[in-house]
């Protein structure tokens, strides 16, 4: 690996870990572990913890992948990584 590629890989891992922390927090955190505390607040007629488990976490999952795609495209441009895939 060149230094440039190494830096790209380091940045990729950092991004991945950061997004996975959010992934864990909205599903296992808000939807399961701290649900009772969040249930004190309501969205319309739905307790927040319950809503996070059945609706909110799913929306956040989609947003996380969108952020990941955008950030990775930016990283690849920044480090000059070839956008085309390997020819098979």
């Amino acid at each position, binding site marked *: *690996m060149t230094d440039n*590629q190494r830096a*790209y*890989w380091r940045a*990729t*891992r950092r991004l*991945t870990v950061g*997004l*996975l922390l959010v*992934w864990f927090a909205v*599903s*296992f955190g808000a*939807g*399961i*572990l701290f*649900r009772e505390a969040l*249930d004190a607040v309501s*969205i*319309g*007629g*739905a*307790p927040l913890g*319950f*809503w996070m*488990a*059945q*609706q909110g*976490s*799913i*929306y956040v*999952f*989609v947003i*996380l*992948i*969108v952020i*990941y*795609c955008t950030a*990775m*495209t930016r990283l*690849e441009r920044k480090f000059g*990584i*070839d*956008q*085309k*895939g*390997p020819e*098979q």
Partner: protein
Amino acid sequence: MSGPLWSWVFVGLTFALYIGIAIWSRAGSTRDFYVAGHDVPPVLNGMATAADWMSAASFLSMAGLTAFLGYGGSVYLMGWTGGYVLLALLLAPYLREFGKFTVPDFVGDRYDSRTARIIAVICALFVSFTYIAGQMKGVGVAFSAFLDVPQNWGIAIGMAIVLVYAVLGGMKGITYTQVAQYVVLIFAYTVPAIFISLAITGQLVPQIGFTSESVLPRLDRLLVDLGFTEYTQTTKAKIDVFCITAALMFGTAGLPHVIIRFFTVENAQAARRSAGWALAFIAVLYTTAPAVGAFARINFIDQVNETAIDELPEWFETWESTGYIDLDDKNGDGVVQYRAGEGNEVVPNRDIFVLANPQIAGLPGWVVGLVVAGGMAAALSTAAGLLMVISSAVSHDLMRMTFRPDMTDREELRWARISAAGAVVAAGLLGIFADNLGFVAQVVAFAFGLAAASLFPVIVLGIFWGRFNKQGAIAAMVTGLVTTFAYIVWFKFVDPDPAGWWFGISPEGIGFAFMWLALVVGIVTAIATPAPPDHIRQLVENIRIPGGN
């Protein structure tokens, strides 16, 4: 027109469409057959993945599950969507960059080991067969419930359709039929949901209606009055809720039929994008399902509880006569009592909530036909994806890569077609001989647990830890496979007493715990044995950098 006639019209039209697509997208090479030529656009692959993923169980049972489990149903909602984040971030782009055809391909090449490849083949076949039996059964149930066709004939018709487009088109035919199937199934799911949401909450969008004051607070009160747990609570232990959710998430990310969908796109970037599209398309159904479930439970209580038996609505009688609702007027007062415990007189099958919803909400006959076609689309698309895993494991990983390396591309393609045909027949027979869907649902726990504990760890470590070697991979796969298999068999079939569960973790959730065990065993073994050779280190570096060969 009556319901059955409409069902025939919709089922006939959609089946004709699938066959038409199959003829248009025939496969000419193994590359077409296994990975659809590597040139499926990300959006279309997202749709195909969504159809591939959402099975008969998602379509028919998801809403019913949440209707009965309330908060407890969240494990399936989060578990079967959250796995896509893991797929997008940890697996899909790297496996695409690797650029081969199957999951055992990656395991075999990355660990430079025929043994590892064969163990991965065993995992892939086991996972896929347990899963496919349920799909064929689902097709049979839909045929018998709506079209008055005997169940086994229904399975045979479903087999014939899949046979045509899987054998003819391989992954290419499957991809484009799955795109059509996604459109059919999502339309069939959301149309009744919108009508029911309008009827109960006055809101057009079910997800918004779900948060209305007239839904959850009312449902909580209704259920408590009838002696049930509140809808927004569960009786399950927190550790079990946590572990089941995690096992389903990691299992999703390790399922071969989902992973191979990402081999069909152009490059790593397209793989990331199509994972995003896939989850967005899946989320449409998965955020609608809990709303439909809550509405359906309210409807059910309103229309059935404390209603005189001779005044029950028409849909009730239809479904009671087909055995989906069980009614027993225990106290002989001629009125139905629906409640928790002893005094309960009515037991509905949870699958009816999607099937009967159009009737319960008083929708016209064509909507019923649409729902039937949607259920079939969900079952057939998933069955086809699983067939690809089975046939490519046999023709590519066993025949070409293990036993007959001198085979030509043309010969391999012939083997791929033969094994796809064989797999269809085997899957149909499994569907015919599986007694009921209940048994099938039980064994699905296997698929996720095994995928989480055996395939997921070796794929992720293979990408993110260059030092991980053959010995570690074999140790991890065997540990995950054996422990999860033993635990599930023991607590599902030998001694199904929850009191014996380790740390209160059910068989559905145990794959998560044993995944960690497999990781630890794999890592310790790898450290104790020699590092992988240089060409493997190079392979790992190449898959981390897009286009970096």
